[in-house]
């Protein structure tokens, strides 16, 4: 579908003809969004054109043209989310990949990222300075800006705080093309160090559990917090697919604590958090242990082993994996190790030091392994509240999933990723389910089961459709609708996100 001719000409004159395309094949690659089509792209419409702006001014001008001609647009960066899929004709994809500048203030521990910067780029540069960033559960190929604006969860949030805590000064092209600076950027150009105010904090409308999902304009630049790290960062070794980071064992160690039941594991996790030890702490579903073991051997090796897992896995056994880091010195590591052993003894765990390497989390290189075994995976349920909620929801979701298995893939043992966040003040549960390509509607159905269950038991999920949850939760969706209408009067910023405006 070709774009309004004058609109296209205007865009081309801003961007140059190398940075815009309406070729159907070029547009095809921006049809489905990321994270597996299956569920999200059923109604996807091929975009009318893709543009590649290089600067905030270009983004602003593109957005203004979109407003003028009432053309929907979707801002995308590294693409790994279903929200990138257009659902309306004449959609412009604003691909921010060319905006990839990165600046780090080492002393004051923050990084100014444009939308095209991914986490591994930031982590690599941070490591050089004895600092670190958070890496998200979806993988370090994700854009720092986009991921932090929308989701940004991962096990580092235990020590470093959840995503919304990490946003500092931010440059934001509002849906109508006005440029807004948040925090220190609001009245001091090029000053990104702080995110609050002045006065009420408008980062409040930037986020929410998943933010407006591209429905409130385009973030072009965001400063994110960096954090002190160990002086000698982990070093890479190995040849693909066996690559890993080797931990400096005088400063970093992984441990596994095995518990007979999830309740015992959760109780121990609460105690770890209260004791303020650890940098990451989470339960590890057996499925992912088997995936890790099959690395490089092929999915068939996974399936063979998994078929025997039922007899080997105690359905209630739960493993907690915890990373200890001696930020201050090697003595901090020794201290935390001693405390962990105390807790293990008191809580009846079998404790073992794990391999001194990381394949998965520090650079978040393994995230995509969720698709390893073939078929489709989906986060059937993702919730964020207390560890207790995580436990309840996880158990309930396991039962719901079982009711649809088969054709959903079999799961054994405690199947949820339950991660501590913010030194145990909250937790993050991600519960994955998988199916063959031919059974994807069962995944969608399970997701719906979970939504209804969340409503029934009063759980707080991450993915909140305002039109579904709003009527249950004090009609908050009216406010969301007002925010959307106020800031996006022409309804062009990734419609219909964040919600269908039914409240006319």
């Amino acid at each position: 579908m070709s774009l309004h001719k004058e609109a296209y000409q205007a865009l081309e004159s801003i961007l140059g003809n190398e940075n815009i395309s309406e070729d159907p094949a070029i547009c095809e690659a921006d049809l489905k969004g990321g994270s597996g089509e299956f569920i999200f792209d059923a109604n996807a419409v091929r975009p009318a054109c893709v543009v590649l702006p290089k600067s905030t001014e270009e983004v602003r001008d593109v957005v203004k043209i979109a407003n003028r001609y009432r053309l929907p647009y979707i801002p995308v960066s590294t693409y790994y989310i279903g929200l990138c899929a257009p659902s309306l004709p004449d959609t412009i994809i604003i691909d921010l990949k060319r905006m990839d500048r990165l600046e780090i203030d080492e002393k004051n521990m923050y990084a100014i990222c444009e939308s095209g910067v991914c986490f591994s780029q930031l982590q690599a540069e941070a490591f050089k300075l004895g600092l670190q960033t958070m890496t998200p559960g979806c993988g370090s190929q994700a854009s720092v800006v986009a991921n932090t604006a929308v989701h940004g969860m991962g096990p580092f949030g235990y020590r470093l705080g959840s995503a919304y805590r990490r946003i500092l000064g931010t440059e934001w092209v509002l849906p109508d093309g006005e440029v807004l600076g948040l925090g220190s950027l609001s009245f001091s150009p090029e000053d990104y160090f702080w995110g609050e105010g002045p006065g009420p904090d408008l980062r409040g409308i930037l986020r929410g559990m998943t933010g407006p999902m591209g429905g409130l304009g385009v973030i072009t630049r965001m400063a994110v917090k960096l954090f002190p790290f160990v002086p000698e960062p982990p070093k890479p070794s190995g040849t693909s697919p066996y690559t890993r980071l080797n931990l400096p064992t005088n400063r970093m160690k992984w441990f596994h604590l095995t518990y007979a039941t999830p309740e015992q594991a959760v109780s121990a996790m609460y105690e770890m958090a209260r004791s303020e030890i650890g940098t990451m702490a989470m339960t590890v579903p057996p499925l992912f242990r088997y995936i890790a073991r099959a690395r490089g051997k092929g999915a068939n090796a996974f399936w063979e082993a998994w078929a025997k897992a039922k007899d080997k896995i105690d359905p209630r056994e739960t493993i907690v994996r915890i990373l200890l880091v001696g930020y201050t010195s090697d003595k901090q590591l020794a201290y935390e190790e001693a405390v962990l052993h105390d807790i293990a003894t008191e809580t009846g765990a079998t404790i073992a030091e794990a391999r001194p390497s990381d394949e998965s989390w520090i650079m978040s290189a393994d995230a995509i392994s969720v698709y390893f075994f073939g078929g489709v995976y989906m986060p059937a349920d993702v919730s964020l509240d207390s560890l207790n909620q995580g436990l309840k929801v996880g158990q309930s979701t396991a039962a719901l999933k079982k009711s649809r298995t088969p054709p959903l893939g079999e799961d054994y043992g405690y199947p949820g990723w339950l991660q501590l966040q913010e030194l145990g003040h909250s937790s993050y549960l991600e519960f994955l389910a998988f199916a063959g390509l031919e059974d994807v509607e069962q995944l969608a159905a399970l997701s719906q089961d979970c939504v209804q269950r969340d409503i029934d038991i009063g759980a707080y999920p991450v993915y909140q459709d305002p039109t579904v949850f709003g009527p249950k939760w004090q009609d908050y969706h009216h406010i969301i609708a007002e925010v959307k209408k106020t800031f996006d009067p022409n309804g062009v910023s990734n419609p219909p996100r964040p919600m269908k405006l039914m409240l006319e």
Partner: protein
Amino acid sequence: MVVPLEDYRYDALSCPRCSNCKWVDHVYVRSHRFAKICPINARYGFNAYSAHGMLDMALALLDGQLDYTPGLIDVVYKCTLCGACDVRCKRNLDLEVLLVLEGLRERCAQDEAGPLPQHKAVVEKVNESHNRYGAPSQKRIQELPGAEENADILYFVGCNHSYVQKETARATARVLEASGSKFALLGAEEWCCGRPLIATGQWELARKKMEHNLDTLASYGAKTVVTSCAECYKTWKVDYPRMLKRSTEDMDYRVLHIVEHAQQSLDAGTLSFKNPVQMKVTYHDPCHLGRLSEPWIHWVGERKAFGRVEPAKTYRRGTYGVYDPPRQILNSIPGIELVEMERVREHSWCCGAGGGVMDAFKDFALWTADERLQEAESSGVETVVTACPFCCENLGEAARLARDKINVVHIAELMLKALS
């Protein structure tokens, strides 16, 4: 069809579009500047210019949702088929990404949507003159120091080293000689290995070259083919078995690159480097010698539930490419200081020449090469050593144009310098 696109529909469909195919393995990312692995995506930016983009296009073509457009052709033929995306994806998943990209090429050729005129010009020369330059066969290298009439080893010189960078052929011959290995040459009987035809999806034309070369090899009775060209290496080792629907290990010959031969000779004590060569160098891993060079494993099967394959399949993930031998060689030459770039081994950044890109998109090929040279500069060296004439040519030209402090040299020539 050698790479029927329909056979890889599941792979295209299963792509989660995570964008890992654009980035170096995160474990190995060492800087913001050199974190990307896909030249077309780094240069052109659109998601279409990437493995996941091409997988989407392939699916749309198969499903009749897309026709051949200028954009599609541009994307397909600007890709150097370097395989970085394939290795990246296979770190975590079992998807045959590169086979989809090759399948797209073959399909384009079959539907006469490609290759491009510049490719066709090369193809014509290969067809008629058996080399990509259109030069007379008789002008191929006929003699080299140490060559004999018959030997167990056949030195397959390749078009580039026969006609253009002949000094590398001479250096290779000297290394063979110095290691006490007798070798034969095919001279005018040597035909282009077929790489330019395979690169542009014209497998059936390439088959003719293969058949000739294999017959000629058999007539010489040689069991080992040594080459100094990474592209010839990969073609003989991987693509010939593919065309014959056999595995590499089932072929009647084995292929060695001169670096493998030299490394084996070093280990056996039949080769040593005595002359110091005072140089600070870095090594550029050619794609066809590195991640693309794992033996081909013929497999026929089908998909079952959850995409499981029956029978089980061994995936080529770039793990066993020829990475160590050249490094061992460089470390054994006195005076050489080897400094690694950031993107090395299976994560090497492509030189930009492959896949017919040097023929059809010269500017882009040079851009890609210049990216590599910037990386070399950042590692503080002035010499880039590599093991492929096309890497040498493209990197060398980029160096002459914009980075004249950088020298590009084939490892065989360094070995020659180091021989007493």
